[in-house]
Each structure stands twice: as C-alpha cells, then as structure tokens.
C-alpha cells in the first residue's frame, strides 16, 4: 500500500485519537488531542492545495489556532485549577478501550470497503475510514471516561471525526458553515469548562458518573 500525504495524515489522525484511549492522564490526552487535531488541520491545508480552494486555507488556519492551541490550553488551565491529574476510568478499562478502538478502526475499514460505491477514489475511501474511526474513538472515549474533562475531550474527538468526514467526503462545506462550527465548538468548550468549575465547587469532585441525584 503506497500512501500519499493525504492518507498518511488521515490515518495518523485516527491513530493518534486511538492512542488517546490508552492513557487516563489528562495532560497526555490533551497533548495527543493537539497532535491529532494538528494532523486534521494539515489535512485541510493539503486538501486546499489539492482542489485549489482558498477558503480551506482559512479553515485550516483557524482549526490550528482554535483547536490545536486555544482549546487544549484552556482545558489544561481548567485541569490545573481544579487540580485533577487523571481519570479513574469507567467500566471499560483503558487498555481494553484502546484495543476496542483498534478493532473499530478495522471495522471502519470494512465499512468503507462496503460503501466503496459511494466514495469513488481510494483517497476518499481512506478518508472515510479514518473519519469513522475517529468518530467511534470519540464515542469510546466518552464511554470509558468518568470525569467531566474526559467526557469533554471525548466530545471534541467525536466532533473532529465529523469534521474529518465532512472534509474528506464533501471536500469542505461552505465557509460560513465551517466558521460557524468552529466558533460553536469553542463556545461549547468554554461553557463546559465553566460548568466543570461549578461542579468541582458544589460537589468537590468532577466524577459525572456520581451525579445521580435526579435519577429515578
């Protein structure tokens, strides 16, 4: 399999996302997240160069700025302030989650082969595989994390999967939509961060699996 830059970037973003599953240390997770998003930003720039679409350069730039720099820094700041280092993990232990994630990558490959009639060339097929894998990884992250920050990271990865799918399958949505999405993600993360502070203050922990007062 001779891979071009496009596929390598797509697959490396998927692999980096899967590696996030393997560690419960929030710092390591954030670093992996930044790298993973950097791969996606570079993929966007590569796509811009390939289809000669200038607006994608801007999207790539803003992804790099917001998701690679600002959001991880903000979350790192939150982590520092509420004084947590690692997730205690839910019913899925980290190693099992990571191996399941790899299984999901294989499953995504099979799925993308099944649907090969939809995405014609090999590039978009590998893109679809990577995007689906990132999406599933996000779901797994949310399932295997117990504390609020872990869940937020899972949500961000899931969001990245959707973005990667949009990028590789549709060669980018209209600019206004992309920008709107980015802004939306930023605001979501900011609000999540604030809520995490509140949870820490009221409950003295941020383990969301223990928030069960309202359950019937």
């Amino acid at each position: 399999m001779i891979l071009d830059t496009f596929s390598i970037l797509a697959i490396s973003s998927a692999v980096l996302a899967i590696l996030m599953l393997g560690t419960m240390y929030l710092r390591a997770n954030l670093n992996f997240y930044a790298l993973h998003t950097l791969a996606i930003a570079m993929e966007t720039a590569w796509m811009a160069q390939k289809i000669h679409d200038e607006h994608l350069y801007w999207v790539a730039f803003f992804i790099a700025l917001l998701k690679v720099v600002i959001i991880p820094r903000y979350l790192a700041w939150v982590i520092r302030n509420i004084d947590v280092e690692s997730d205690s993990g839910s019913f899925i232990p980290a190693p099992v989650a990571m191996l399941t994630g790899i299984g999901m990558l294989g499953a995504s490959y099979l799925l993308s082969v099944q649907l090969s009639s939809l995405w014609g060339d090999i590039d978009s097929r590998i893109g679809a595989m990577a995007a689906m894998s990132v999406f599933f990884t996000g779901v797994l992250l949310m399932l295997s994390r117990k504390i609020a920050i872990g869940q937020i990271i899972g949500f961000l990865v899931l969001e990245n999967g959707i973005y990667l799918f949009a990028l590789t399958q549709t060669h980018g949505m209209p600019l206004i939509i992309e920008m709107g999405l980015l802004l939306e993600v930023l605001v979501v993360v900011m609000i999540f961060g604030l809520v995490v502070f509140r949870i820490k203050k009221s409950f003295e922990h941020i383990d969301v699996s223990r928030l069960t007062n309202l359950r019937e």
Partner: protein
Amino acid sequence: MAIFEWISFVAVVFILPPLVLGVLCKTKARLQNRIGASIFQPYFDLYKLFSKGETVSEVTSWIFRNAAAINFAVVIVVALLVPWLTFKPAFVGADLILVIYMFALTRFFTVLAALDAGSAFSGFGASREVTMAMLVEPAVIFCFASLACVARTSDLSVIFSCDNFSLSHNNALWLMAGLGLFLSSLVELSRMPVDDPTTHLELTMVHEAMILENSGPNLALVLFTHYLKMCILWGIAAQCFLRSISYFWTVGPLIQGALSLGALFCMGVIVAIIEGTLVKLRWTKLPQFIAFAVAMGLFCVLIAVMRG
C-alpha cells in the same frame, strides 16, 4: 569476505553490549548534571565480578549454578540468528517463532533459578517477570507476524534482508513494528517506565530482584547475557526504524552497517532520555503501558491485512 564478516560480528557480539550500556549510563548522568562514570565502566564491572569469588546458597540445586551458563549459550545463539545488525553472517532457519521461544527459554531458566534460591524477593521478581512476559508476548508476535505476513516467509533473515523489496515501501508498517518492538523491549528488559534498573528497593524490583542471590562470575555471566539481550532487542527495533526511512534502502552495505551500529547507540541514548524524564509506573498501571505496545502490534496487523 565471509571470514571478515565472522570476525567482525563475533567481535561485536562480545565487545559492543557493555559499551551500549556505558553510553546509556553516561547520557543519563549528563542529563542529571553529573559527570558520570566513563563509558567503559561496564567492562570494569564485569572484570571485577569475574575475578571475585562466588557464594552459593546450600539449599540451591544444579539449576541455580547452571542457569546463567545456559542463558548465556542460548542468547549467543539468538544473537547469531536474529538480524539485529546488517553485517551478520548468513544463517539458515532464523524462524521468528524459534527466536521468540528461545527468548522464552532464557526467561524460563532465569525464573527457575530465582525460585530455586528460595529467597522471598526472588520469588516476587519471578512472579512479576512472568506476568509481564505474558502481557507483552502478543505485542512481539503481532509485530513480527505482520512483517512475516507481508514478506510471505517466517524466516527473520529473509524478512530483514535488504534485497527483500516486497517490504521496501511499507514505511508505516516498519515504523509501527519498530515502535511496538521498542516498547515491548522496555518491558522485556525491565527498563524505566516498567522497572527502575538502578533501584535498590526490593519491593519494586523486577529483574534485579531475581538475580539477588547471584554473585561473582555467575553474576557477571548473567549481566553480560542481559546486556547482549538488550543489544539484540534494541538492535532489531533499530533495524525496523531504519527500514522505515526510504534512504536506507538505497545505500550500500557498508553504510548500512555503520548506520545500524549508530542506530543501536541512538537507541541507548533515547532510552537514557526516557529514563531521565519518565517516572516508574505503579505495578497496577503497567497493563496500560503494555497495551500501547500491543496496540502498535495490532496497527501492524491492520496495515498488513489491509495491504492484502
């Protein structure tokens, strides 16, 4: 030419291992702002141990006395079989399953010898060693097997031979296999995130705990075997990394040999950096670390399968 290869290889087998360790220790010392011992210090240590007398517990059987020698012999054979350097005299039948089982054989005798002495700490170390070996085995097998699957042979010397062009464009596979083998070598060799080789706290030791009872020439033999094993494992990982660089495939054998020697020392330096920056993992966190090695192995398998 064959004679020249033999001489250089045998010389390397006996001279190189302590030197790699010396470089490692020196780098580590410099990282910690110490001058550190000379890079030849491991030779002096081995010489010192060989010239010492030996104390053997009365309750031990022949296994304890002979385990070190058996292991030494096995590892020497493995060193001849495994292509951990490019300038290795040709050997037939370096089957990957055979190699993996020969490593298992050395582990078997080390563990037996540790149990034989009957010390509480040795038993401790033996139990941990076996647990880790069990966890890390899949990673090694996955990495090798996916390489073998792509090369359509299980002979390591064919897989790693530089004229095997079925593997020459598989940079991703080589990179992942290298990472997987490197991570698992840290576990097999009881290096830093898994076990601190410089510790003197018996409760946390793994490999050091097993050889607590050895002394004198026996200990020297054990140590040398360990260094050689270290070189083999890091060497094979370094070979994988080298092959993931397209440039490596285009150069002549002499440069390849020099590169692989250099890569071996690089591995030593990298391990020193890892040991200087990481902390030892708690025993219960170990499966999380080993899972990364297994994950790399699984990535190799996926790449190998998708290719076919």
